[in-house]
């Protein structure tokens, strides 16, 4: 589903990604861990071209998204993104947040877009919140609406950038449960998160990113409990 070859990204002098290579299969769930500043967010943002890499190749569903002349807006429709701070549209209700892009980008008929939005709300367990504005929702509910909003575009891949790190502990679970259900439903997911419970239960693979390169990757049990490299051990000892 995703193929990344020798990806480089820097901001002015600062080299953030220094040659990342990996591939992610259809339906695979990958969790990315790594220290602050190691380039996790930057990597995710390259996958939907919120950042444009300087060097390297990215294929999503067989399409070279770094090729010149590629339609950015089309690429982004295929890759849903969920942000740490939800980024819901505050002037729109939960339902409108979800139906906006199907209406405007896909030119869906209003009735159809509404139906789609309600289905997505149902899916994240918030069918009764259709008319609520984001400010009237808890953090966990807001994040679930944000997930529903991304899902409504029927993306092939979902990217999550620390989706639970701005949430109170009691709300983390409700968001993770939605994500686990998505994983079971066969969604291809790339998740930046240090939630080990989620990784162990839902992830097929854990990638440890350090200074812009993948230093270790493997099944969750292996990376978490039998890391091969001292750098990984050191990092894990800090977060466990």
């Amino acid at each position: 589903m995703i193929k990344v070859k020798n990806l480089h990204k820097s901001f002015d002098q600062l080299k953030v990604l220094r040659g990342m290579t990996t591939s992610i299969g259809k339906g695979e769930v990958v969790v990315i861990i790594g220290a602050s500043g190691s380039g996790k967010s930057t990597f995710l943002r390259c996958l939907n071209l919120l950042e444009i890499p300087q060097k390297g190749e990215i294929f999503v569903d067989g399409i070279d998204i770094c090729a010149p002349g590629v339609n950015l807006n089309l690429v982004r429709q295929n890759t849903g993104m969920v942000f740490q701070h939800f980024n819901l549209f505050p002037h729109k209700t939960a339902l409108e947040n979800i139906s906006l892009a199907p209406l405007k980008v896909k030119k869906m008929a209003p009735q159809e877009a509404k139906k789609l939005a309600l289905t997505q709300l149902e899916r994240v367990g918030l069918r009764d919140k259709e008319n609520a504005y984001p400010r009237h929702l808890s953090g966990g509910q807001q994040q679930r609406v944000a997930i529903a909003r991304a899902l409504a575009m029927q993306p092939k891949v979902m990217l999550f950038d620390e989706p639970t790190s701005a949430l109170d502990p009691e709300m983390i679970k409700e968001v993770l449960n939605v994500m686990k259900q998505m994983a079971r439903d066969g969604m291809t997911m790339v998740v930046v998160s240090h939630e080990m419970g989620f990784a162990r239960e839902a992830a097929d693979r854990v990638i440890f990113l350090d200074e812009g390169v993948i230093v270790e990757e493997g099944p969750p049990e292996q990376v978490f409990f039998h890391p091969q490299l001292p750098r990984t051990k050191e990092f894990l000892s800090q977060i466990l």
Partner: protein
Amino acid sequence: MKFLDYSVIIKNWPFLMLGLRETLRISSLAVTMGFCIGSFVALARLSRSHMLKLLSGAYIEFIRGTPLLVQLFILYYGLPQLGINLDRRAAAAIGLSINSGAYVAEIVRAGIQSIDKGQMEAARSLGMSGTMAMIYVILPQAFRRVIPPLVNELIMLIKDSSLLSVIALTELMRAGEHIRTRTYKDFEIFTFIALVYFVITYTLSKILGYLERRLQVSD
């Protein structure tokens, strides 16, 4: 104090009200035009085109860096030399609109920039184009935030419109001057005119306070 005679106001009431009407008419026209000009200039300033950035920047800096009085003189007394004759009302409306547009542009630009950049990213990540994101996500939010500073701008503009008296537009201030040359009741006339401006601007600033509280609640 017996020499003060406010009956001059009563006697000239209809004429003063005509002046007030002109003041309100030209101010509301200018604020509307100023808002249109300002919005476009703000978008131009934030666009990626170097040309648009340069032109809009130059407009804003020039207008804000020169007195309105001088701008009005250029329009009304200067342009005829180039064969462009504007009648006083047109010169007044254009002058005030162009002037206000520069200030509004900065207000709108600040409003747009005050929207968290995560909003644009969320919109783009859903496949919206930059224009779409602007129209459906950024501008509606920015608009609510700029309402209070825009009302403030309207208050400034109503006061500034008194300068239009120098290009012979008979608005409130010039109406007062007319009466003065006939009656020599300078003190009575101009204290009354000051009161009229004050009532208008004070009312607006009360409305502004109300709007600010309302918008705060809904934020």
